[in-house]
């Protein structure tokens, strides 16, 4: 088995117009910048993107939005140090936003990966974000029914990867990445280093390869925070 792919361009080539794409990362930590930039080069339109945020500056997710490729964003916190790209487009009515509490977003993605079509959570009960949703009481407390989230593709960022698709993550770069790997039909992982099968201790694997379809080595990946401090823009 060999899930390694030579280039980010080849990896994102199957992503078509209208696809739903989960993108890992929390702010810039664990964000697969090189895969996002390859997706911009590829250029599919009308994407629905699932990410915790809405991008920052003019690179990564913000650049994807700036290029007009995203028609809907599902996220918990579309604010950042410089959320201008998303903010301007949203206020102009150019992009749809589905706002989801962060823990509910994580759990909905996990549910998608785990074959759980719906679950109940206390989060959001009695708030605007539960409007129109089914409510149920358990032991006298009220809960909101939430649905799974799945995607056609996930673009994620790992630290080590092997030809079976087993992955590790770097520190808090883990965040949504392992969950999105579970919830997408086609998970594309960029990793800092591809190692031979067996080099990752089976106890240290965070994402087992069954959840991953492609692995691309991107040594010394860019950090969104660093790019933005340099006022970088893509393309």
């Amino acid at each position, binding site marked *: 088995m060999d899930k390694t792919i030579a280039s980010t361009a080849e990896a994102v080539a199957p992503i078509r117009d209208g696809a739903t794409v989960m993108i890992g990362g929390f702010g810039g930590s664990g964000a697969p910048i090189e895969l996002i930039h390859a997706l911009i080069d590829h250029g599919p339109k009308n994407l629905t993107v699932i990410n915790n945020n809405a991008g920052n500056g003019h690179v990564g997710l913000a650049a994807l939005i700036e290029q007009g490729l995203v028609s809907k964003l599902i996220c918990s916190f579309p604010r950042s140090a410089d959320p201008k790209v998303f903010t301007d487009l949203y206020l102009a009515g150019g992009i749809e936003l589905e706002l989801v509490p962060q823990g509910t977003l994580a759990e909905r993605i996990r549910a998608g*990966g785990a074959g759980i079509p719906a679950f109940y959570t206390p989060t959001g009960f009695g708030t605007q974000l539960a409007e129109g949703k089914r409510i149920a009481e358990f032991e006298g407390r009220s809960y909101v029914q939430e649905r799974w989230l799945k995607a056609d593709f996930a673009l994620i960022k790992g630290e080590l990867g092997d030809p079976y698709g087993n992955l590790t993550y770097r520190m808090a770069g883990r965040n949504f990445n392992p969950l999105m790997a579970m919830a997408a039909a086609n998970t594309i992982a960029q990793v800092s280093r591809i190692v031979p099968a067996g080099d990752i201790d*089976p106890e240290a694997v965070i994402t087992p*390869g069954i959840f991953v379809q492609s692995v691309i080595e991107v040594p010394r990946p860019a950090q969104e925070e660093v790019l933005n401090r340099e006022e970088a823009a893509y393309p």
Partner: protein
Amino acid sequence: MTRKLTNAQIAWRAAQDIADGAYVNLGIGFPEMVAKFQPAGREAIFHTENGILNFGEAPAPGQEDWDLINAGKKAVTLKPGAAFFHHADSFAMVRGGHLDVAILGAYQVAENGDLANWSTGPKGVPAVGGAMDLVHGAQRVAVLTDHVTKDGKPKLVKRCSLPLTGVGVVTRIYTSLAVIDVEDGHFVLREKLPAIPLDELQALTGAELHRPGPITDLTVPEL
């Protein structure tokens, strides 16, 4: 001419349908034999409910590590590229549709795809394990079984009389006599042993065997 396949031969036949790179869960007991007949050049990655991907054969006697076991509590070994995970992640793989094939045993399979393989009735101690999970989520749910019970009654039936494991879940049945698909609520005969006449096979089957296409000879090596 072969009048009936052995369990090993049924397992061999099932193994021929496993694609290169497939993620496969083999039920406890007889289905476990499928692993050793994996065709050369095609790599299957085996999953076990208790939290291992890419495990291999049993270790040599005396070399067992009892924290490295499969769902049948038998000692196994690891292949390069293996991974450990907890039970919730393990069943996320199952229920979430990430397995390509699950292969289970059966007491009865109905023409609508219903499977009964966990309970023979109210007496004794009931036990279900992961069977009810495994029949959901895998892209293909295959059954390995003798074509008839020990006393000659059909195991392939119109409707299961035994407690169900899952409703409408089986996609293919490998029996001691034939290979049969479940499609649109019917048994569809794909292959049969050349030595078994069609009418005899039908007589041993509790529901109609449909034949919309050609029927291939089921040929399996001596094992």
